[in-house]
């Protein structure tokens, strides 16, 4: 049988050693009523050849965005993954290991995560980063929960310009837990700091914003940070890690917690998962931080070595008093992010981010030039921007997909003002953008 090395004779010998005749006897504790007593109703098992064919056919029933000219972003970005990254991930000593509970034989994972933590600190300007969260959305929610613990307050102000799915997740958790969520109205472009100031009071545990925000615009972090701190709340910033290669780190604007979706750092789009939640904060709040942390120490011979640490924050020690219930996290995605950042380095990351920014502007200009698109606002942005489309966006989108273009993401459909969100990564070429603009114009 596939993946099971024990042969019939060996099985007989094992049964004898255990003192039973049939393996079914070992399940005597299962009440008769609860026994299935029939085979599972599932398709029969497959040989590897048949399985490979089946999986190829399922994957062939999709048209991957990565194969066409892809202008979709909205939380998942089509960046180039350097070849080394996957070669690192394929090392079985990494991917077939469990959480590094036995540090003596887990220095590989531990050191890699320690290095990842250090890189996230370098990007965000924070003092400490954890070993990973599930994704940007859950990292964002955990930041709100942590802020409540730190401030001993219960209300959070969430910018309406944050990814709508993240806000939904925030509401889901809030429903079940003990956080009150207030979402600051947003009607495009930049968040209005005065609206945040108006909602602010001494009951607020945190102000949570994203910059670039959902529509790609950079928020006025300086103003927002001051508003948060003015009432003793924490300032939580969700950032795009590629943009952090060329943007001032959120620490500059007083951020207390920086989170984000780390997928752009060497992780495949993979239909939206697994991604990578990165999470970083100030040293002083480290004991309220959720998630795993790797620290440096020495071994019995005095050699430098790494180990999971500060675990008294965690569920396996503190149970219901833990800072989070997280156990398995996204270590391999963090490994990818570390390998990615090592591969690009500070020079490469800044070149990549600059290319994205320059190309996004190029496409925006070209599309506006066609006369079919208009800019709804003129705020500074990264490599994602929204335009209104003078026509039926759904139809345009469908027709362009047939032609091999993923024409961004339709945000809203409103007579002659359908709004579309475009992302442009370093993978896009001028040629592709020109072709897209021309074809859209010709529709």
């Amino acid at each position, binding site marked *: 049988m596939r993946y099971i090395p024990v042969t019939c004779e060996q099985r007989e010998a094992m049964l004898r050693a255990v003192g039973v005749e049939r393996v079914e006897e070992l399940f005597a504790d299962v009440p008769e009523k609860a026994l299935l007593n029939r085979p599972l109703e599932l398709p029969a098992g497959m040989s590897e050849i048949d399985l490979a064919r089946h999986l190829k056919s399922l994957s062939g029933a*999709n048209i991957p965005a990565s194969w066409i000219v892809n202008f979709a972003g909205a939380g998942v970005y089509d960046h180039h993954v350097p070849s080394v990254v996957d070669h690192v991930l394929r090392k079985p000593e990494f*991917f077939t290991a469990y959480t590094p509970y036995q540090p003596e034989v887990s220095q590989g994972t531990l050191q890699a995560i320690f290095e990842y933590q250090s890189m996230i600190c370098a990007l965000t300007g924070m003092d400490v980063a954890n070993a990973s969260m599930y994704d940007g959305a859950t990292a964002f929610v955990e930041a709100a929960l942590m802020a409540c613990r730190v401030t001993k307050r219960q209300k959070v102000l969430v910018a309406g310009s944050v990814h709508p799915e993240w806000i939904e997740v925030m509401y889901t958790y809030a429903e079940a837990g003990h956080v009150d969520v207030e979402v600051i109205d947003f009607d495009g472009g930049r968040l209005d700091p005065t609206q945040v100031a108006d909602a602010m009071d001494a009951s607020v545990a945190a102000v949570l914003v994203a910059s670039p925000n959902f529509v790609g615009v950079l928020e006025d972090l300086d103003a927002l940070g001051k508003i948060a701190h003015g009432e003793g709340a924490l300032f939580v910033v969700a950032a795009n890690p590629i943009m952090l*290669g060329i943007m001032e780190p959120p620490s500059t604007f007083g951020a207390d917690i920086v989170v984000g979706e780390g997928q752009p750092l060497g992780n495949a789009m993979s239909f939206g998962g697994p991604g990578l939640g990165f999470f970083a904060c100030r040293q002083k709040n480290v004991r309220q931080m959720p998630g795993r942390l790797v620290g440096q*120490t020495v071994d019995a011979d005095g050699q430098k070595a790494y180990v999971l640490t500060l675990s008294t924050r965690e569920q396996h020690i503190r149970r219901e008093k833990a800072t989070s219930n997280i156990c398995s996290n996204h270590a391999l995605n963090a490994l990818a992010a570390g390998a990615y950042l090592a591969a690009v*380095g500070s020079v490469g990351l800044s070149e990549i981010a600059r290319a994205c920014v320059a190309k996004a502007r190029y496409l925006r200009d070209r599309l506006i030039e066609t006369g079919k698109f208009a800019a709804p606002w003129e705020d500074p942005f990264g490599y994602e921007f929204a335009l209104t489309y003078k026509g039926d966006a759904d139809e345009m989108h469908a027709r362009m997909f047939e032609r091999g273009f993923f024409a961004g993401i339709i945000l809203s459909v409103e007579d002659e003002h359908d709004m579309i969100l475009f992302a442009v990564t370093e993978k896009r070429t001028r040629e592709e953008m020109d072709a897209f603009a021309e074809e859209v114009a010709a529709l």
Partner: protein
Amino acid sequence: MSEQLANTPSGAPLRGPRESIFDLGSPESSCVLGPALDVPEVDLSEALGGADRTESPQLPNVTELEIMRHYAHLAEMNFGVDSGFYPLGSCTMKYNPRINEDAARFDGFAGLHPYQPVDTVQGALELMVGLSESLAEISGLPGVTLQPAAGAHGELTALMCFRAAHTANGDPRKKVVIPDTAHGTNPASVKMCGYETVTIPSGDDGLVDLDALKAVLDEDVAAFMLTNPNTVGLFDPQILEITEAVHAVGAFAYCDGANLNAVLGVTRPGDQGFDALHINLHKTFSTPHGGGGPGAGPVCVTAPLAQFLPGPIPFRQSNGTFGLNTPEGSIGRVRSFYGNFGVLVRAYAYVRALGPDGLAEVAHQAVLSANYLKEKLKGSFDLPYDRVCMHEFVLSGGRQKREHGVRTLDMAKRLLDYGFHPPTVYFPLLVDEALMIEPTETEPIAALDAFADALIAIAEESSADPDLVKGAPYTTPVRRLDEARAAREPVLRWTPPA
């Protein structure tokens, strides 16, 4: 020989601590640069409204060769299932099939954007529906969400559904009951879901004390969470009575499915009376643990609870195509997008590879291998629950501690010298000096025998030369770590040498 060893600088083939990647390379080098810019440059300060960086972030600057060598050396210091026997109880460290790794990397899967038009991702949705249907059949619980990113996330999701159901009934509740053998994520999830934890002691037999349970069950109890088979490796024979008692007070019975491997195709949580279950695909369904994730923790629920599941949920449309849909009463999203799709691909491939016979054989062999190992070891260690076990069993190092001052931790470390990954230790808390051993069905009998021999040899060493065991490990890339110092003076990031 030891002098020569001492004499030897740490070069490549020697396994030992490595330089940080930050200490390699040089400021200028970068192996992956952006493409040649084919559009006009922009002025960053202007473009970013003055928020451009003034100082570049301190990232390593290395070439590909240095990266590949660095991670080669790190990998060499790691132990995975591919390195050897890994009987980490509760973690089901089975073989991770390579075709699953390949499939998850197919462009047609890995290259999908979550917001693609639905008609361009029919294969992905079909796969998710196929996996959901399989998990429903395996669990006996028809409602499935694939969204949760891990087991703990699944627990929380299920608890949120319970809360929503009770709330919908106008019957909100405050407490969740767990046995003292519960995994730490259970109480932590309870807390995150805004409930209060009530812990009940287990019976001397390691099972649920039905009376103790009944004593705490009341109309304020939202749920009882049980790992079944439980964390001492026993299937609770009173399971039907337990779930009945829970239902009697209008509470839900939750199954922590971390140990589902033991009962695949033999008994289904739904048939045991459970209302909800999370499944760790990274345990039972062979997806790799990745050194700590990503995993996936789908949740299966009864039909009445299905309306509360988080959305969107992929479903099969009447015309044979596939769509996405959010249930009416959904608790909402618990994460972005649809789940850890790359992990789901692997699990799907596993289910299809094995089929019904294969899955049942997994359970049979996992349980047989555990019992085989237990029989071999029970002479040398205390065995708190001396009965047929499921896929894992718990030994106690109590005898070694009492008689020779050798602790379970010492024996675990000594196992490293013998080339084995240690079992889970000190969990469940219930058992003194616990060693929780889960061999899984994918280990050859030779590995089981060698492991048993090693552990027996260590038991002997513990009496003949306790200091030897207490000083272990000796042959690992690093020796025992100063964990206290790590926590006392936390160094959590690299900093440039002063």
